[in-house]
């Protein structure tokens, strides 16, 4: 009798353990912030505040959690994918081929040793900077000492067809190769390393975000955000409320996706997903 009881208890415990199996976390839609009179293209966090580039209206706006505008920088010339570091906002001005810096209420400019043709994005990381030079189909990269340039128009590895966003990480440079509909990855000498997303039938891969474990890319015309692991394997596809998305940002552990056309910020949160297994 004692043995039978033990067997029954063991079976129950075994079953219970199996039922609690958890699969990797997923991004789940949380809520929408509706902006008024803003068509966001890029976004960045400065001291816990969210800034958006509003290219249509030649300005940057800083909003609160409800989407209400609290501050703005105007008289810009088509600001695109912005970035921020140590309280400084970096603003690529597509219309004037300049990179502006905004800090302590003053606007200055990043000194460049080469001319740009429609800078679509900037990334700043420690002493490094990278610029997506849209019409020149290249990336300009500053390693803290020197500027280098890599890429040319084309479809082969290491070539671009209108790059619209760039991000520097610890040892790599990631490029949203917009109209080649893919992501390309380079080392810090500009050597091609890796390509991803090319089989996902994207149509205008406009905005990129790379975290420790994931790569996010906005698929502008297909109204979705694709999420890959760092090896390029597709993990998840987000589409709820996404319409002409141009960029993404993680702030307070929440994923913010901006919709250019309807001025929405859609927020997704990471949640555990429990599945029943036999």
């Amino acid at each position, binding site marked *: 009798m004692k043995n039978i009881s033990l067997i029954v208890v063991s079976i129950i415990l075994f079953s219970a353990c199996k039922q609690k199996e958890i699969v990797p976390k997923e991004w789940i839609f949380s809520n929408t912030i509706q902006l008024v009179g803003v068509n966001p293209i890029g976004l960045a966090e400065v001291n816990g505040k969210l800034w958006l580039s509003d290219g249509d209206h030649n300005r940057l706006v800083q909003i609160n959690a409800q989407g209400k505008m609290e501050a703005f920088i105007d008289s810009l010339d088509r600001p*695109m994918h912005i970035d921020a570091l140590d309280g400084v906002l970096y603003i690529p001005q*597509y219309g004037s081929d300049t990179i502006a810096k905004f800090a302590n209420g003053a606007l200055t400019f990043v000194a460049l040793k080469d001319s740009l043709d429609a800078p679509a994005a900037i990334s700043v990381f420690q002493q490094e900077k990278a610029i997506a030079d849209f019409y020149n189909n290249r990336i300009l990269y500053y390693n803290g000492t020197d500027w280098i340039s890599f890429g040319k128009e084309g479809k082969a590895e290491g070539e671009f067809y209108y790059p619209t966003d760039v991000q520097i990480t610890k040892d790599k440079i990631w490029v949203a190769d917009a109209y080649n509909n893919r992501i390309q990855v380079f080392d810090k000498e500009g050597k091609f390393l890796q390509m991803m997303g090319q089989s996902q039938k994207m149509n205008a891969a406009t905005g990129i975000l790379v975290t420790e474990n994931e790569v996010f890319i906005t698929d502008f015309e297909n109204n979705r955000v694709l999420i890959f692991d760092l090896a390029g394997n597709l993990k998840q596809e987000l589409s709820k409320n996404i319409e002409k998305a141009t960029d993404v940002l993680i702030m307070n552990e929440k994923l913010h996706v901006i919709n250019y056309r309807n001025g929405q910020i859609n927020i997704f949160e990471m949640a555990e997903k429990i599945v029943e297994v036999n």
Partner: protein
Amino acid sequence: MKHTIIVTLIIGMMTMFSANAQQNMDKFMVQVDGLGCPFCAFGLEKKFKEFKGIKTVKIDIETGDFSFSYPAEKALSLADVEKQVENAGYTPITTKIERANGKVEVSKATSLSEKTKGTVTKNVMVAGNCGMCEARISKAAKSVAGVSEISWNKDTKMMKVSFDVEITTLSEIEMAIAKSGHDTKNQKAQTATYNDLPPCCLYERMAK
């Protein structure tokens, strides 16, 4: 009193110069397809800034309406404008110029033929991606004499075309479309023409 007169004179002269400047500007209105993406729209705007002296540039991404004014003495032509739109990677649908002297110029729109007794309607698959593709496909089909109706659905990729069988054939219409860079069920576009399409129009090629 003396100062008031001087200020009034200066304001008057400035107003006169401003009015003259306005009078000496030609106004351009271009309907451009495929400006849904801000990178594209701002790119078009940027390329037109190469025309030194351009003023009052307005661009509506939603409608594709693009307008600006330009000094009349430079006599910018319809062809110059349409070429610059194409240089920026887009397709001009219609272009209108209101000259400073009151003359109006409008680009020649390709018109459809009248429906006749011999008109038939056919459906055929045509590859493409977007609104710009639709405009290009439609323009190519309309260029064939005898075509009286054309529509293309970017989701289904099906083209519905009505034409007079006494004047043309479906094969001729498909050839005209292929020449514009779009594969059809029975005609494949030249690779070079396909490669010249704007980035957002680079559809997945149809298998032969």
